[in-house]
């Protein structure tokens, strides 16, 4: 079996964050349940956080952590409002299908 290196290069973390981000976009593009779409957004946010932390490690500065902390806080606010909106939508439309919620046009 191939011998594992004692530690991994920084770019692997970035690659992981990229993969997660793309997965998030994919979820956003291909899922129809509005809640799932919402969760894909959260996934993207997490990916970005990971890259923040990674860069913060590279630059040996704490700022990245602060940014990701703010991202979390904003995500919390967003989740609260977004879920409330979803509840309202469901009450008015009895559906969570994103394609049926296209009343923005006409």
């Amino acid at each position, binding site marked *: 079996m191939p011998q594992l290196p004692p*530690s991994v290069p920084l770019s692997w973390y*970035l690659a992981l964050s990229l993969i*997660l981000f793309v*997965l998030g976009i994919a979820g956003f593009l291909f899922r129809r349940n509005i809640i799932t779409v919402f969760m*894909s957004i959260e996934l993207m946010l997490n990916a970005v956080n990971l890259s923040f932390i990674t860069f913060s490690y590279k630059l040996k500065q*704490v700022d990245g952590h602060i940014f990701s902390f703010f991202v979390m806080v904003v*995500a919390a*606010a967003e989740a609260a409002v977004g879920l409330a909106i979803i509840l309202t939508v469901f009450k008015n439309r009895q559906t969570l299908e994103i394609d049926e919620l296209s009343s923005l046009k006409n």
Partner: protein
Amino acid sequence: MDALLFMIFAAIAVVCGINLVVQTHPISSALSLVGVMGALAALYLLLGGEFIAAAQLVVYAGAIMVLFVFVIMLLNAGTEHKGHRTWAKYAGVPLLLVFLGIIANLIANRLPASENVVFGQFTKGSPLEIGRALFTTYLLPFEVTSVLILIAILGAIVLARKEID
């Protein structure tokens, strides 16, 4: 050791992420997202972000996702069925591949040869440091965020008052 841990948790994260996308039931997606978050928390620890790891668990996994699960249960949303197809569905895959390719290329080529991540080298992630930075350099953003949170709470209450009672 570090590499092993990274492998394990990265694998968990990726698998859960894929699961999030492919699962048809919101609950399973939610749980896989929780899995991703847990794995990421572990990775943060590897990167020396103790506080962020804990915050990840408390805030994301412990509060936000619980909220998601709560709503999913409340609406008792079933599995989704085939909807009509938009052009995005066809354009999506190539777009994503292009995106992936470009960024991967950037990471692979444009980034300078980055050093290895060794656990314990970066010690600025302790609650002490974070708190210091948060209350000196980033004081104003911090306060503004608190206001944002307040507004969000009020908005959520106003929006959802009639639903939950």
